């Protein structure tokens, strides 16, 4: 698990440390580095896919001898390891260094390579695709139909559990159906509980599509090792945010639902006070991004002094909105 990430000269994150847990929800104003942090985590997981010039902090552009550094503090089993990735201004290949005692750094590289960012897009989720046995859910949710098709064929129990979850979350539907719009292509639809009509993916509401993609991710037998989610609450009715929370916890705490797969480290961002309210009993899972001039600072909510007193008789989302906790936009 990634315990923390230190960023140096990575876009807006000039010098910042992001503390992480098995599940982390980052809140903060626009432009406070939440999405940048997720991109940094992905860049560090696959350093060769990023370049110095596209990622260096604006004020450091054009300066010689500068570096971008991102350091992961990891625990792997009981061993603590630091993994540093460094991009240099001469655009030489990124350097990856480990410190700590660990016999199999390659295992960590392999696990981290399975880091995925999702910023789900309803149109991409609904799109039909050419069948491909190796497809996974894309950053925007594309390829979902292929993943569902494989889940049905290879893990029918999980597919049935997903259908049941669909029925609980969105009771107007009871089943995911598949069709072949043309040879080699796959499309999906949802069947209405009442009347058993098939509603094509393109005609399904945006919120339903986003919910389905999240649900699918949570029911996969082999989800990515690290899942970074941009605003998983987007497009979803506030009363259904509890289902969003359940899907995210299903990923990161599989033992809580008797799933024997490996836990996924989940890092999500939100601007929703309603979603935040649901984490009242786990302030250690909330990280607040503070924007201070050109700098960004990340603090765990649980490290706020008097957090229990602050929460007494109040809703977490409201307290955040008020500005008491920081992590809110400033006005001139």
């Amino acid at each position, binding site marked *: 698990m990634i315990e923390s990430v230190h960023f140096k000269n990575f876009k807006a994150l000039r010098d910042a440390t992001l503390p992480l847990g098995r599940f982390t929800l980052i809140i903060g104003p626009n432009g406070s580095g939440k999405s940048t942090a997720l991109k940094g985590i992905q860049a560090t997981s696959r350093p060769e896919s990023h370049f110095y010039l596209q990622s260096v902090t604006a004020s450091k552009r054009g300066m010689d001898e500068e570096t971008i550094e991102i350091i992961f503090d990891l625990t792997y089993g009981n061993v603590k390891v630091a993994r540093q990735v460094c991009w240099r201004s001469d655009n030489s290949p990124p350097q990856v260094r480990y410190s700590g005692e660990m016999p199999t750094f390659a295992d960590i590289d392999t696990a981290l390579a399975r880091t995925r960012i999702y910023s789900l897009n309803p149109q991409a989720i609904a799109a039909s695709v050419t069948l491909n046995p190796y497809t996974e859910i894309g950053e925007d949710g594309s390829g979902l139909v292929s993943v569902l098709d494989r889940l049905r064929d290879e893990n029918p129990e999980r597919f049935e559990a997903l259908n049941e979850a669909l029925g609980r979350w969105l009771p107007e539907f009871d089943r995911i159906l598949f069709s072949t719009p043309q040879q080699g292509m796959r499309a999906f639809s949802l069947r209405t509980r009442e009347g058993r009509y098939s509603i094509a993916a393109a005609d399904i509401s945006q919120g339903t599509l986003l919910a389905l993609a999240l649900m699918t991710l949570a029911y996969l037998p082999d989800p990515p090792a690290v899942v970074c989610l941009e605003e998983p609450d987007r497009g979803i009715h506030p009363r259904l945010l509890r289902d969003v929370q*359940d899907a995210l916890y299903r990923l990161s705490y599989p033992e809580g639902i008797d799933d024997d797969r490996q836990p996924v480290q989940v890092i999500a961002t939100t601007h929703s006070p*309603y979603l935040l309210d649901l984490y009242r009993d786990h302030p250690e899972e909330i990280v607040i991004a503070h924007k201070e001039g050109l700098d960004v600072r990340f603090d765990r909510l649980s490290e706020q002094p008097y957090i*229990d007193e602050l929460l*007494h*008789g109040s809703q977490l989302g409201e307290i955040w909105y008020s500005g008491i906790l920081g992590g809110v936009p400033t006005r001139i």
Partner: protein
Amino acid sequence: MKLSVFGESPADEGAVRILVEAILGRPTEPISPPLESRGWPFLRNNLSKVIRHLMFSTETEALVVVTDADSSPIHHPDHEQAGSRYADCRLCCLRDIVEREQKQLSSDSLKIAIGLAVPSIEAWYLCGTDTRGSEAAWLQTEERKRNTMYRNRLKYAVYQTERPTLELEKRCATAAAQRLAQDISLLETHFPKGFGPLIKTIRTW
């Protein structure tokens, strides 16, 4: 009887309904869409609107409100003396809202009962199976000042995880309520200050 339940979580609705039916000795009918709240402040801020909605826009005959006490003071019979209601006591606070609404509307046609789960509804679910399932256990514990941690421990005891899904919460809450419905006096005995007032009111219906 058409009954609405206004609690802190949708998982509690079914369980509270089972307990109410056990007290009444007859089934109840829900209204649609069901009420849902987002914790204590929401419940306190919206109770008066909920009462008006139920009275003017539905055929609801009775409303049961259940809230967690968290670390707020536990209700005491002294609070019930006229003019001495305790502002920090959630039961007193909700009773004030109900009385004010009934006075303003000049109507008490909607029956209303209020329960205070001390410190959270999971303690009710543990009643009779775990030593933490009583108001006395909460009053005696050294962990009262660390409410969040204690709440999570109660959750773990009920759901075997601190992060139950809504589905699991509903399943466990229903099972616990069905067990408690067999002998409702258990809750009355172990939660005299929070469940006591609820059962006392419902028995008058």
